[in-house]
């Protein structure tokens, strides 16, 4: 089964390896892409339909019915902001559809704090993604596709 992952925010799609954090850049968290937020981008929305199993101000995880999971991380080292400038809009454990708002934030404010607002969007239970978009993207547009869990090689 192939899961189509939608862009959770407006911006420009860039390769994961450009993220200024080796653990994301080397796809240690998982394979995917990153989005450089567009100016004025505010709402970050669910990239897949499923259950919002974890939501923090700076990151959230949605798990699809087949067990595949997508992490959206809002900026790098933004856990250090302790939620300041972020508003969580959806309850942990609730079902979400593609496009449902999950977090409101201001990427420009993150940049003003000297942090990168780039957003890695990664599949947590996959070894690769395919059909990845490039360049400008709007929320809800196709970002990448990923096979269901357990269909790739085990992590090693």
């Amino acid at each position, binding site marked *: 089964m192939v899961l189509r992952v939608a862009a959770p925010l407006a911006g420009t799609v860039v390769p994961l390896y450009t993220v200024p*954090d*080796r*653990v*994301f850049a080397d796809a*240690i*968290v*998982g394979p995917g892409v990153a989005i450089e937020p567009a100016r004025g981008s505010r709402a970050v929305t669910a990239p897949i339909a499923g259950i919002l*199993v*974890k939501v*923090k101000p700076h*990151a959230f*995880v949605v*798990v699809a019915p087949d067990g595949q*999971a997508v*992490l959206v*991380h809002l900026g790098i080292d933004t*856990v*250090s902001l302790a939620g300041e400038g972020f508003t969580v809009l959806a309850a942990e454990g609730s079902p979400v559809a593609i496009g449902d708002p999950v977090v409101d934030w201001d990427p420009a404010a993150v940049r003003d704090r000297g942090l990168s607002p780039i957003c890695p969007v990664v599949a*947590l*239970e996959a070894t690769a993604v395919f059909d990845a978009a490039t360049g400008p993207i709007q929320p809800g547009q196709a970002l990448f596709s990923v096979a269901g869990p357990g269909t790739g090689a*085990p*992590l*090693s």
Partner: protein
Amino acid sequence: MAERVVAVAGADGLHARPAALFVRAAAESGLAVRIGRADGESDVDARSILAVLALDVRRGDEVRLCADGEGAERVLDRLVAVLAGEDADAGH
């Protein structure tokens, strides 16, 4: 069955970066390592980043690691070192 209890030292607990490094170290061990909260009954596959993130481990929380098989003691010593912060933030 080898077992360890360790307090997680990373400034942000087991969030995405340290969780990913821990999960990779667990996967590289070749053993079916499990992790759970030290005060809880259940544990999860330490090789699944989704499962580890869902544990929502914060700084100072104690977790229990278990593994069976050849080299299990050595593997758990290595994973304890990761969680205790000796290279939990190796991404920097």
